[in-house]
């Protein structure tokens, strides 16, 4: 019974946005899946700027995804899906930069310049994601999916520190200010409050039935909105969440 309710809720969402209200719906045709997955990816600029010179370290984070989706078949091959995921998209990396442009405002005081050195960057995001997808069955077992998604952030963090480098104030001829290599000599920052509370993007993927009701899935979700508000200019280029997910699903009905 509960599955039916969930199917209904998810389906209504899909209905409202994707289907003409006049379509003839048979609720019994809805197929419901439960999913778990693991997100691997980064919050990164589209095309890494030349001022980022190297990636020193990249730590995997406990970025899991759990959720349900409901698919309504439109024909033998096509279907439409609405889903609800609870997921985490984090990042913990260290990069080296050369003349990376940054402009940081703290209250009213602004500091702008070009940074050469190391940056440790942590991103943590917990969110509810609602994808809406069109699916296409290419074989008995394999189904391709694709469509937009909307994520609502429940928790967000964007923080880090610049260390073992130097800032040239304003331009390459400006005063040189060293960032040390020990705690207390780092330039720490926290721009969690400048992050958007929603994100939209596109997701493409594949579902592969392997055994009875179990299947494997892989998808890529590509953020189309930067993780920060558009007026946030601290970093040279907007950062987008780009994550791949590998998971398993279980066909409930």
């Amino acid at each position, binding site marked *: 019974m509960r599955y039916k309710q969930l199917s209904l809720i998810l389906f209504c969402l899909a209905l409202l946005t994707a289907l003409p209200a006049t379509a003839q719906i048979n609720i019994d045709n809805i197929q419901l899946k439960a999913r778990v997955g693991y997100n691997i990816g980064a919050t990164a600029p589209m095309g890494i*700027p030349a001022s980022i010179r190297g990636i020193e370290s990249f730590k995997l984070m406990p970025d899991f995804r759990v959720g349900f989706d409901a698919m309504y078949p439109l024909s033998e091959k096509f279907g439409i899906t609405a889903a609800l995921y609870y997921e985490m998209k984090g990042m913990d990396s260290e990069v080296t930069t050369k003349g990376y442009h940054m402009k940081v405002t703290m209250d009213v005081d602004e500091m702008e310049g070009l940074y050469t050195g190391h940056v440790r960057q942590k991103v943590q995001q917990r969110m509810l994601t609602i994808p809406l997808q069109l699916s296409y069955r290419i074989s008995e077992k394999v189904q391709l999916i694709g469509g937009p998604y909307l994520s609502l952030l429940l928790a967000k963090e964007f923080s880090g520190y610049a260390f073992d480098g130097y800032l040239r104030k304003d331009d390459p*001829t400006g005063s040189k200010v060293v960032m040390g290599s020990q705690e207390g000599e780092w330039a720490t920052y926290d721009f969690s409050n400048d992050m958007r509370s929603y994100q939209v993007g596109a997701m493409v993927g594949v579902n592969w039935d392997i055994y009875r009701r179990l299947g494997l899935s892989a998808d890529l979700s590509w953020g189309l909105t930067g993780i920060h508000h558009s007026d946030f200019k601290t970093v040279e280029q907007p950062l987008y969440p780009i994550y791949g997910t590998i998971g398993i699903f279980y066909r409930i009905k």
Partner: protein
Amino acid sequence: MKYYYYIAILTMILTSCIKDEPQNTECDILEAWIEGDHLAQHFFQNTDMRIRDVSSGTELLTFTIRNHAALPAMPVYFKLSSGAVISPANGSEQDFSNGPVSYVVTSEDGQWHRTYQVDFREASLPSSSCDFEDFEMSSNGKYYIWYDTGDNGTIDRIWASGNEGFMIANPNAEAKDYPTVPDEHGFDGYCVRLTTRATGSWGKAFKKPIAAGNLFLGAFDSKYALTNTLKTTQMGIPYTKEPVKVTGYYKYIPGEVFTDKDSKEVPGRIDEPSIYSVLYLNHDDQGNEMMLHGDDVLTSPYIVRTAQVESLPAASEWQPFELIFKGTVPIDAALLANRGYNLALVFSSSKTGDTFEGAVGSTLYIDKVKISFQTDQTTENAQ
């Protein structure tokens, strides 16, 4: 194990996105030196043939020589920012007998330039009295700097302050709101006014919430402005006479609320100014050139004379002060004459401002400073 494959693959993917290294945009002179043993005779010490660690804010490089009239064309070599080029050519002989020579450094990418003046100057003692009438705006027009006009009209930038550091944290501050400013209500003419200022949100973030107004003989290097401020103050200039005392006039009004480095109020504590001077050996035991900084200017084993006052009470009218140099370490007269000692003289509006304790608003006015020295007695002092 799969975990590691993922990391390896991901790192590969990400690394493959890294673009070609952009050409360097920096165009600094990092170091300048003269080569050739036969040229050493023109200098007091071999270390005078090299200017190390040129600060990023400096565009005037001065070599100190014995005799300007006897100066041959000099080949000056430079260490530049990676990829940068200099004109006239690195190491080319130039004639400095008519004054400074301009060198233009161009960055590797060709987009950025800096013009430096390289000068060779005869050693001269700065004028022994300072009225703080000689000041001008910094080259970027943000804050005031003070200089000394010698007897023959030469300008020496022997005075430094923390104003450049204040600018980094407060780029929008007006010149009159910096910690170290000229004030027209001097004992006569202008005086220098040192005020302890709040450093704003950046200063707070780096646990450096206040900046005491300071003025000192020496140089300021912004390099450590956010990390190790005590290292920004390079205290002292070469001094070839033995100082006996420093006199002058001051006024002092302590700020109302004394705070510690966490910006917490310390009830009952009244801010104090500080004025002190030391004479120290400017080469260490290994013969390396050496400067004292904010962290060791009163404690270094290379100090030979120290002059401090016990206390400087608050005063809203001009009061005289007098610092007497004390110390028993013998002074080597020959070394003194060959610029082997530095004299540091420091004024600060908050005595413990170096550790970020003080009262915002504490104001110290200084005027008519005079350094007295042993006249023609340096030889006797060598005993």
